[in-house]
């Protein structure tokens, strides 16, 4: 319990204790006066409104609660008491008035929820107070005196307005709910726990059950088991989320229902109001939607055309595989990106065009149909596509998504192109023919060739599109129409009208044909004017030939085998004889012997079969002729008429044919390319050895076979169609490259050229098959090479670009740096090929040098050029390709600059040096500094030498006289001792002491000077071991002294061993010396740390010194103690300081007189911290 809580609880107990005090008072002395006060206090404070009336209805008392209930101000009590008479209150509602009256008739009456009003009271007090009706409960009862008479009447009132209002509300709510639930279309069930307590009509309708059948059950029979689980879950959690259940109707059918439940408090119970909605329709719609979506999806996915959907920002929402394949970019890489992003590797105009189409759809809301986009993919594959775009989803007239259909028409385009070419070929062919050729559809000219135009005297443009009938006589028109209608392919004659109005006869032969996709009619037209003329003439010739008009072109001979009676001019022409030479002669004279026999044999048998004879000409030559003979009655004589046809040409043609056939056969047999002839069924009827060899099959195995069997499965597809087109005459020939499979299974690439031919009323196809395997291989290789090359070009380009970029960066860096980049040729004078712009620091422009005006050699100082050249030669000989040279160059101002030249040598493939590449840095300042330093060093060396000479002479020359002084003083003492009194002897001794002391001083001085000059050899020094050694030396020197040495083990430093020993010796020697007068001497050698720095120290508990003299401590020959107290030259600490300084350290001392002294020093050479580490490592116990 916290402090605060305790406080509170104490406070809470206070009123209780005061109450108990009150109670105490009550019990101790409670008179009638107090009793009345207490009663009135209870009356006053009661939460129940209390009103006390006299038996005649006058208000005697009213408490605060009653005032409040009646809505009267508290101060109005005084006004009301004695004035307000409830029995006279006309404003009270009748009901309560009745109750009150009963109360005044000595009856105790209770009332509940009756209406009271304060109007009567308001009249009494006459104040401006809000009138109020009060719902109230309470009681009214008389107070009886001892005689049983009512002395007063008490009215107790409780305001029940709130309770009443709630009750009303509840009632009206219940009513509303009832009405609502009846009116709604939703089925409503009220549940208490699991059990239904009520349902509405809609629910009855939905389920088919009657209300009475449902109420009181848990409804389990009305739902499927799965739904039951769902319902249980929702009931358990009290969830108000909608969910779906399957309801089993009374008739057994199942209805999907959406359910939403809510728990409410109702009449003190928790009731779950469950609204249900039949969602059958929705389910059906959803299913349809799903199916439709499925259908759309499957259509979308499997469509042979490219499909895509874009959002309003032109980003792909979806795209099908066809479209993705078309542009070789995976579906996933489209989604969420714009065409420009997806086709980033394509020429920009293609995605832009697509985007502009999409934009137009979005902006106008109108579809764009079949816009043609010609694209060139990044692999240079031209693709022609038709793009159709249309608004897919519109919201408020704004297009939110766009559907996009892309049809790849590349192949169609190609075909169209091929067709156009083929048409052109056809036109040339048709135009070069002598025969007229027209193509018409239902009598309208579609096309006409030059020959026909010439015949008719028209231009093509005048004819095309006009009607055939316009150029024909009416009879001819009829004839043409009948032929066309019948589809006849027989030749017939018509009359054609020329442009100039004249007509000419023509023979026409038409046939149906596909032309540009329609079934047109092609007609061949031959001008037969000449023939007609001849025919007419013939008709007009001699009468006796009139019957023979048919044979007018043939030679005619009338004879009776003995005599020739008549011949016609044709025969005369044939034979070359004059008519007179022939008439009356024997026919035999003009025939070869064999022919005569043939003729005679025919004559006797009266054969009318044609036969061949050889007829002699006048010039002795002969010609083969075919003779038709029959009997004829000639001027009363029974004769024969022979019609003779010169068949030399036919013979020749036949011979030629034979020859040609032979030639063909030989060609066929010996052709290097495979040849086969296929019949209409496509079976091989002939095959040559080349194809046998190509396929590896014997000829017999090939004959009767359909070649598709030898074709590679992947190439079979179009074979049959092409073949049929040739057979049907739709195309004359085709060429195709495909793969054949040899008998041994090997694949052969071939080019087949197939042409249709018509032989003896039959269609054949001659197929020439070339083995192009090698070519194909070569092509494939070529393609690979090309691809590789392209790749390499790409790579190389990228590399070059990157290199260029790097180069630019480098150039920038170079120009920013103070180093000048040079490239000069290894030629006379070193002409400069390149120099970076920062060469201006030497006063030259890059152009000065690169133009060749100034060669590099010419700006090198004359004194340096030979040296540089020699060095270059040396490096070249050594095969060194990278080196540094230093020399001076002349700036444009004439100033000399020292430069450091980092040179790289460039060589050609033969190893010859072609260029030098140099980075040149101005080192003038450095050079100057170096020179200055060199000078200083020289000076120092000189000084050192002088110093050495000085100390040498000091050591030699200063000591000699001292030796003399000492030596001869001693000689005096020894040899002439009797000549001196004691004082004289003392003086001599003092002379000796002085000389010796001076000798020592000289020695110390020399040591000190040597210290500064000697070379240091740095190594690891075990300072601890050294200190121990010195300690033991000292102990040995004065074995009778007791000194306690405390030496820290494992102190390792870097330094010169001799110098360090000298320093440590001096320090320890001092300590030893200055502790000579201490009984328990302690000398410490150790190590501490100050600011991460190792500090070594030598500490003693000896005489110490006054710190005010500390600054003088390390000065040479400075003594702080008298020689008699502590002997010494005063050079020791000077030596120590010099040693420490030479080790780049510091030394200082701390002391006070009689308290001992401590000398601290550091070693600046790389050591300090390492020594600590080493120490710790070497001593695991520390």
């Amino acid at each position: 319990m916290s402090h605060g809580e305790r406080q509170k609880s104490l406070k809470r107990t206070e009123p209780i204790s005061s109450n108990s005090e009150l109670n105490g008072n009550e019990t101790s002395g409670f008179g009638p006066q107090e009793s009345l006060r207490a009663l009135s206090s209870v009356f006053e404070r009661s939460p129940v409104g209390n009103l006390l009336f006299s038996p005649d209805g006058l208000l005697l008392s009213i408490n605060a609660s009653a005032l409040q209930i009646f809505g009267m101000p508290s101060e109005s009590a005084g006004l009301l008491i004695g004035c307000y008479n409830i029995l006279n209150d006309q404003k009270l509602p009748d009901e309560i008035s009745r109750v009150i009256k009963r109360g005044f008739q000595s009856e105790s009456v209770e009332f509940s929820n009756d209406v009271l009003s304060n109007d009567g009271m308001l009249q009494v007090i006459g104040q401006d107070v809000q009138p109020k009706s009060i719902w109230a409960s309470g009681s009214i009862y008389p107070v009886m005196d001892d005689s049983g008479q009512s002395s007063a009447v008490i009215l107790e009132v409780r305001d029940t307005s709130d309770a009443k209002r709630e009750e009303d509300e509840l009632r009206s709510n219940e009513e509303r709910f009832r009405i609502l639930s009846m009116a709604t279309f939703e089925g409503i069930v009220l549940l208490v726990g699991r059990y239904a307590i009520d349902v509405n009509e809609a629910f009855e309708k939905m389920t088919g059950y009657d209300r009475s059948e449902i109420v009181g059950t848990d409804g389990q029979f009305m739902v499927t088991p799965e739904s039951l689980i769902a319902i249980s879950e929702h009931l358990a959690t009290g969830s108000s989320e909608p969910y779906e259940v399957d309801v089993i109707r009374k008739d057994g059918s199942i209805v999907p229902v959406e359910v939403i439940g809510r728990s409410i408090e109702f009449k003190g119970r928790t009731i779950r109001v469950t609204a249900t909605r039949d969602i059958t329709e929705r389910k059906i719609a959803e299913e349809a939607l799903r199916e439709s979506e499925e259908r759309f999806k499957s259509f979308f996915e499997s469509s042979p055309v490219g499909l895509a959907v874009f959002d309003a920002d032109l980003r792909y929402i979806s795209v099908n595989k066809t479209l993705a394949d078309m542009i070789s970019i995976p579906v996933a890489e489209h989604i969420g990106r714009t065409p420009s992003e997806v086709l980033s590797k394509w020429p920009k105009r293609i995605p832009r065009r697509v985007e502009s189409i999409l934009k137009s759809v979005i902006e106008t809301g109108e579809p764009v149909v079949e816009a043609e986009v010609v694209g060139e993919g990044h692999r240079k594959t031209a693709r022609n596509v038709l793009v159709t775009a249309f608004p897919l989803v519109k919201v408020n007239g704004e297009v939110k998504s766009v559907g996009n259909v892309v049809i790849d028409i590349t192949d169609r385009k190609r075909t169209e192109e091929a067709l156009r070419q083929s048409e052109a070929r056809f036109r040339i062919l048709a135009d070069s023919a002598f025969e007229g050729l027209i193509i018409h559809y239902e009598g309208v000219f579609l096309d006409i060739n030059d020959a026909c135009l010439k015949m008719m005297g028209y231009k093509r443009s005048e004819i095309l599109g006009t009607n055939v009938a316009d150029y024909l006589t009416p009879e001819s028109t009829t004839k043409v129409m009948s032929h066309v209608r019948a589809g006849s392919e027989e030749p017939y004659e018509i009359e054609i009208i020329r442009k100039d109005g004249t007509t000419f006869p023509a023979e026409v032969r038409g046939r149906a044909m596909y032309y540009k996709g329609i079934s047109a009619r092609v007609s061949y037209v031959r001008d037969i004017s000449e023939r007609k003329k001849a025919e007419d003439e013939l008709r007009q010739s001699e009468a006796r030939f009139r019957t023979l008009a048919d044979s007018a072109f043939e030679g005619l001979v009338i004879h009776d085998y003995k005599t020739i009676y008549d011949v016609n001019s044709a025969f005369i022409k044939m034979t070359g004889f004059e008519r007179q030479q022939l008439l009356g002669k024997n026919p035999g004279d003009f025939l070869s012997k064999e022919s005569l026999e043939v003729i005679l044999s025919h004559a006797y048998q009266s054969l009318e079969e044609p036969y061949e004879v050889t007829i002699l000409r006048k010039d002795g030559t002969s010609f083969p002729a075919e003779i038709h003979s029959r009997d004829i009655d000639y001027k009363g004589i029974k004769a024969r008429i022979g019609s003779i046809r010169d068949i030399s040409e036919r013979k020749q043609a036949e011979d030629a044919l034979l020859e040609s056939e032979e030639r063909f056969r030989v060609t066929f047999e010996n052709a290097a390319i495979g040849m086969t002839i296929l019949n209409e069924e496509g079976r091989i009827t002939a095959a040559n050895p080349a194809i046998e060899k190509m396929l590896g099959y014997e000829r017999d195995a090939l004959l009767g076979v359909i070649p598709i069997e030898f074709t590679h499965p992947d190439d079979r597809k179009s074979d049959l169609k092409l073949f049929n087109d040739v057979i049907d005459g739709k195309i004359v020939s085709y060429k195709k490259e495909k793969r054949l499979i040899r008998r041994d299974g090997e694949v052969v690439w071939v080019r087949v050229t197939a042409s249709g031919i018509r032989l003896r009323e039959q269609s054949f196809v001659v197929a020439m098959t070339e083995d192009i395997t090698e070519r194909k291989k070569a092509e494939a290789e070529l393609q690979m090479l090309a691809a590789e090359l392209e790749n390499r070009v790409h790579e190389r380009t990228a590399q070059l670009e990157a290199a260029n970029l790097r180069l630019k960066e480098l150039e920038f860096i170079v120009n920013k740096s103070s180093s000048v980049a040079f490239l000069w040729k290894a030629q006379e004078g070193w002409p400069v090929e390149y120099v970076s712009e920062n060469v201006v620091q030497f006063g030259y422009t890059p152009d000065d040098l690169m133009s060749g005006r100034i060669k590099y050699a010419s700006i090198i100082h004359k004194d340096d050029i030979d040296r540089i050249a020699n060095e270059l030669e040396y490096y070249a000989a050594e095969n060194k390709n990278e080196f540094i040279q230093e020399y001076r160059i002349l700036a444009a101002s004439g100033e000399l600059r020292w430069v450091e030249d980092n040179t790289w040598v460039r060589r050609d493939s033969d190893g010859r040096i072609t260029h030098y590449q140099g980075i040149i840095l101005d080192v003038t300042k450095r050079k100057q500094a170096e020179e200055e330093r060199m000078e200083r060093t020289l000076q120092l060396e000189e000084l050192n030498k002088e110093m050495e000479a000085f100390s040498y002479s000091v050591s030699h020359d200063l000591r000699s006289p001292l030796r003399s002084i000492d030596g001869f003083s001693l000689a005096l003492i020894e040899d002439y001792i009797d000549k001196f009194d004691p004082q004289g002897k003392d003086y001599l001794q003092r002379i000796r002491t002085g000389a010796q002391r001076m000798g020592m001083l000289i020695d110390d001085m020399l040591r000190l000077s040597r210290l500064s000059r000697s070379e240091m050899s740095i190594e690891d020094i075990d300072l601890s071991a050294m200190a121990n050694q010195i300690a033991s030396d000292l102990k040995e020197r004065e074995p009778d002294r007791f000194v306690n040495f405390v030496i820290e083990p494992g102190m390792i430093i870097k330094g010169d061993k001799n110098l360090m020993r000298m320093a440590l010796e001096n320090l320890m020697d001092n300590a030893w010396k200055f502790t000579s007068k201490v009984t328990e001497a302690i000398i410490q050698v150790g190590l501490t740390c100050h600011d991460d720095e190792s500090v070594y120290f030598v500490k003693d508990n000896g005489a110490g010194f006054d710190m005010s003299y500390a600054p003088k401590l390390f000065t040479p020959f400075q003594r702080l103690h008298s020689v008699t107290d502590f002997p010494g030259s005063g050079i020791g600490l000077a030596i120590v300081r010099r040693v420490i300084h030479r080790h780049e350290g510091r030394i200082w001392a701390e002391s006070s007189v009689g308290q001992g002294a401590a000398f601290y020093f550091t070693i600046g050479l790389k050591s300090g911290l390492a020594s600590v580490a080493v120490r710790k490592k070497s001593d695991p116990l520390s």
Partner: protein
Amino acid sequence: MSNQIILLVEDNPDDVELTRRALFKSNILNELIVARDGAEALDWLFCRGDFVERDPCQAPAVVLLDLKLPKIDGLEVLRQMRENTSTRMLPVVVLTSSREEQDVISSYKLGANSYIRKPVDFNQFVDAVKQLGLYWLLLNEAPPHKRAG
């Protein structure tokens, strides 16, 4: 012992006197020949100049050589001695005031047999000379004497 010669090369007469006294006090009474400079020392050793007449067979038992000498310094004297066959094997003790490291090293390099620094305290000097005489004249076996001719 007494018939052996000691050659002292010393320019300082005080030092000559003190050396003589020190020898005397150490009871080394051998004949002491003094050369006042390097040139004289070499002339004496090689029996030339003023000492042409000298018996070349009379070789010193030890040469006490100062380094700082007029005309030719001690190191040069030592070098020439070691180059000459007749003096090559003579014991040479460098007796000098200098304790320069350089002098010590050069002396030994040139073939000095001993190096003694003259102390200022005469008692120490006497002690040193005594030790020296004892060693070189008494303990040390001199190289076999070579007689010219």
